[in-house]
């Protein structure tokens, strides 16, 4: 039998510049990753991460409707245009990080329910294959660049 231990490190920078760091594995403890401390929060992240057709992929981060999550949404302007760095870390039996995978997202909003608080993100602009985009988009040839992957080719 194979056993895996996976922790997720959630680093959100709000549009105002405040940073929030949480992890979801070490209950009631802080965990250090890249010399930064991540406190525990009981969140889960799910959603598609990538596809070959270049669609905007959405990620959903679900928190229970607790004070820390509400404050995060309120202070982050409703999760609009916040920047999320989500790192998935594989741990060994000693709970030390062995391998990591980091994805980047842009906040597109949030919603409340009676018991949960949902933060929605879209993938940050990124190439999804060697053929896309066929040209490199720079500020020089297209003007201001978008922060997320809502890009229309006409």
């Amino acid at each position: 039998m194979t056993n895996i231990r996976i922790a997720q490190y959630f680093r959100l920078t709000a549009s105002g510049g405040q940073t929030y760091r949480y992890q979801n594995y070490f209950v009631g403890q802080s965990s250090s990753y890249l010399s930064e401390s991540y406190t525990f929060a009981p969140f889960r992240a799910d959603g598609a991460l990538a596809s070959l057709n270049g669609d905007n992929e959405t990620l959903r981060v679900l928190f229970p409707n607790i004070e820390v999550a509400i404050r995060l949404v309120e202070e982050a302007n409703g999760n609009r245009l916040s920047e999320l760095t989500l790192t998935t870390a594989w741990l060994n039996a000693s709970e030390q990080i062995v391998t990591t995978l980091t994805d980047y997202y842009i906040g597109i909003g949030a919603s409340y329910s009676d018991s949960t608080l949902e933060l929605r993100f879209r993938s940050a602009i990124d190439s999804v294959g060697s053929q896309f985009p066929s040209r490199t988009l720079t500020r020089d040839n297209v003007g201001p660049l978008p922060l997320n992957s809502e890009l229309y080719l006409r």
Partner: protein
Amino acid sequence: MAAQFPGIKPSERSFSVGQYPTKTYRALSGATVKRSFGNRAYGYEIQLAFNNITDAVTTLLLTHYDSTYGGLDRFTLPSELFVGMSSSLTAKIQSPTQIKWEYSKPPEVKSVHPGLSSVTITLTGELDY
């Protein structure tokens, strides 16, 4: 957090250890992969029976249940519940790491004689962070 559970010696008690948050994927071949989601156990359970206790003691137990808003608020357990156990075993059960206790269902009261009742209480130990 609610006030500590009343310090009354139970007539019977039983305990089950918590479980760790894991999920198992089993392939068609039968091979399994088990994923761990956290480093702490949850879902401990204690069942207590208080047999032939007076109405005053019964009232005390029910008052404590009300003070937790029917299981909403969590609390700690007094050492009187663990009389007869060694200190090391008591520590394991009384206060597992980061565990606080809550009512998993309302107390059950059975009248056995005028002025005497038997009360059964089930508590669940959940992670409190």
